[in-house]
């Protein structure tokens, strides 16, 4: 075990920090601290310009192999990059679904042609992606996919019909990866396909979902004979679940440290308010702030364990990774409550009519989704108990 980074890595850190300081300025100044979770609907166009700026500097896809246009950074360097990115207050990445999910999936499971076709646009920040997994009747039961894909062999096209939900950035995205049922008689995780679908076509309609924040960051996406080419399927028809699950694996990675840096920014703001309004003198608030601080510290150590463990080759179950989602989601939700309680009765007062939330208010409301999406806390506990502790699986119902 060692905590310090190598001199080379520290040099890399300086390089990242310097580039961000020099470039996150001027027209991009207003993007600072914007576009994160709960704020993803803000400045999409400007943030795409920023994405391209990053690409110019070689700061997109830093963890991807060089052969696919990435920077080929080590895990340590990726950690450093995401930390410095968040520390600088650089904006939420409109390209993160392409860089973090679609790209790695295509790299892992895609054909050479798919790689040539889709990866460069992600690296360049010119093509944005969104994700088509969740459906209204799915929710925690992710495999309960009702969207169907039918191959029109004559036209050499897949035709997709169905509905996806909770799709963020659907309005801005150029492409969507869609999990759809290729075998109409199949159920659950069998008979699915994983499709790469262009968003700009008549068969796709995007409707925003109004959230409890009054804003709309998520969307419903309707597919009505939406098309993609016959070879725009990743893997074979029927492989969709395998591909999708591989993809979910990519979600848990080095970016957790950047996420934590955002959490730190939020906690710092809570502390600032507490000092400003006297809540910092309330012993109960002090305990809660100290607890949030301690657990955020440990969250970082836990991520370091996760990342160090990944390089181990023994394939052992990473318990610290298994509990991570439940831990951070619950922590973040608790931070939201703490923020409001620091504000006291002022927590109810908006910045303006009709519904202008302050940053902390928006955070407070938005974090309620953290314990729901990507596996609710309840599903997480099932997974921990079943995979981590070998306890019996939940019985699935038969009828209802």
């Amino acid at each position, binding site marked *: 075990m060692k905590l310090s980074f190598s001199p080379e890595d520290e040099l890399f850190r300086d390089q990242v920090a310097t580039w961000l300081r020099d470039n996150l300025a001027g027209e991009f100044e207003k993007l600072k601290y914007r576009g994160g979770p709960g704020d993803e609907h803000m400045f999409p166009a400007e943030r795409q310009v920023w994405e391209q700026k990053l690409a110019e500097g070689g700061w997109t896809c830093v963890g991807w192999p060089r052969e696919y246009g990435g920077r080929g950074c080590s895990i340590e360097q990726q950690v450093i990059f995401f930390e410095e990115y968040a520390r600088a207050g650089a904006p939420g990445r409109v390209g993160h679904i392409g860089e973090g999910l679609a790209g790695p999936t295509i790299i892992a499971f895609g054909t050479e042609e798919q790689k040539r076709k889709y990866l460069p646009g992600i690296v360049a920040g010119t093509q944005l992606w969104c994700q088509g997994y*969740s459906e209204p*009747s799915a*929710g*925690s*039961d992710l495999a*309960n996919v009702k969207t169907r894909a039918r191959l029109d062999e004559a036209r050499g096209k897949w035709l997709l019909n169905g509905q996806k*939900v*909770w799709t963020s950035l659907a309005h801005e995205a150029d492409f969507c990866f869609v999990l759809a049922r290729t075998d109409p008689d199949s159920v659950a995780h069998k008979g699915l396909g994983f499709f790469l679908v262009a968003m700009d076509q008549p068969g796709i309609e995007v409707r925003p*979902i*109004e*959230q*409890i924040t*009054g804003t709309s960051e998520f969307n419903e996406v309707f597919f009505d004979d939406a098309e993609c080419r016959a070879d725009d399927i990743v893997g074979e028809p029927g492989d969709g679940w395998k591909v999708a699950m591989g993809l979910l694996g990519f979600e848990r990675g080095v970016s957790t440290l950047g996420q934590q840096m955002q959490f730190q920014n939020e906690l710092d703001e809570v502390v600032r308010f507490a000092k400003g*309004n006297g*809540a910092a003198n*309330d012993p*109960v608030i002090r305990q809660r702030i100290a607890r949030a601080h301690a657990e955020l510290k440990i969250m970082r150590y836990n991520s370091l364990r996760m990342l160090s463990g990944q390089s181990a080759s023994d394939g052992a179950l990473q318990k610290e990774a298994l509990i991570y989602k439940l831990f951070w989601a619950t922590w973040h939700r608790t931070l939201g*409550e703490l923020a*409001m*309680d620091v504000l*006291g*009765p*002022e*927590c*109810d*007062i*908006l910045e*303006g*009519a*009709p*519904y*202008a*939330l302050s940053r902390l*208010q928006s955070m407070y*409301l938005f974090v*309620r*989704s953290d*314990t*729901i*999406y990507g596996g*609710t*806390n*309840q599903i997480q*506990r099932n997974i921990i108990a079943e995979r981590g502790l070998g306890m019996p699986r*939940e019985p*699935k*119902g*038969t*009828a*209802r």
Partner: protein
Amino acid sequence: MEFAFTQEQEMIRETAAAFLAEVSDSAAVRRAMATERGYEPALWDRVCGEMYWQAIHVPEEYGGMGLGYVELVATMEQMGRFLLCSPFFATVCLAGNALRVAGSKEQQSRWLGQLCEGKLTATLAFNSGSSDWGADAITATWRREGDAYVLNGCYRYVIDGHTADLLVIAAREEDSKGEAGIGLFLLPAATAGVECRWLPTMDQARKQAAVRITEVSVGTEAVMGELGQSWEALARVIDIATIALAAEQVGGCQQLLDMTVAYTSERVQFNRTIASYQAVKHKAADMMLRTEVARSAIYYAACIAQEALEGTALSGELSEAASVAKSYCSDAYFAVAGDALQLFGGVGFTWEYDVHLYLKRAKSSEHLLGNGTYHRERLACSLLD
């Protein structure tokens, strides 16, 4: 000793529930909360004209129904359940109780009379922006000038303060501290020098205002009770209103529980209704526990509030009963609302479903008139110091 509703009280509750289910459904709440006023005058007219709730616990001599605080609390519980958008709490529980506790015969007969006729909405302003809802929250001042009193100061969190016709305000003698020097004044909102400004709130179903008073001069007829000695009366008013607010919270808990049981019994995941999962059942059980315990707290507190209004044997328990009820109900409501949202999952996160309305009410009402920590510290002072 009888700690259950009488048949008449049951009837009042049932009637309130039936009326509100009809007039204060989700669409009605959303219509009203989107306005700056925050309530629909036509509905308030029906409340006053048909239900006569504004007069529920006002003595008959002033034109009221002469019922007790238990009846008020039972009604308030239903208002919280259906999130009724109305100036009831401000008018009846804040200003009305202030008149009851601190008003002179003349003041009561003038203002309570109008209030009972449904002609008047009113509110109480005392907190200048503190999370401590005790006497230190009062920073507005009064000073004597000849036969008149000159008032200055700012207030926040004034419920329905931008629409109320009448304000009851607390102010302290210049340079006074703590519980000393407090006076209570009746002030028509239209008085020159009184500026009431809407404060848009996260919980849109209850409106708050900021009130600024600049060199307003009033006569002795505006003074309630003994000038400078009014903290004790004001504290009683706040405690009595706090109990009504806690009742509203219990109503919210009940509705969330009912909604959650209904939703989870319909929602199917992995070919089972999610209500069949023990994780869901046990959360629902905890929600029910909190709701029932909270209900026990408010029914008792209602009895004590009644005694306090009448000055009978158990009045001395008022402060404790208010803090017991408000601390438990505040925490219960927020916990229940959080659990409800979690069990609704994604749809609970949408504006379309009603859960968020209750989540927001839970948080706003938690802090209004003192949160759990504040009220527990009040209890601790009397237990430990």
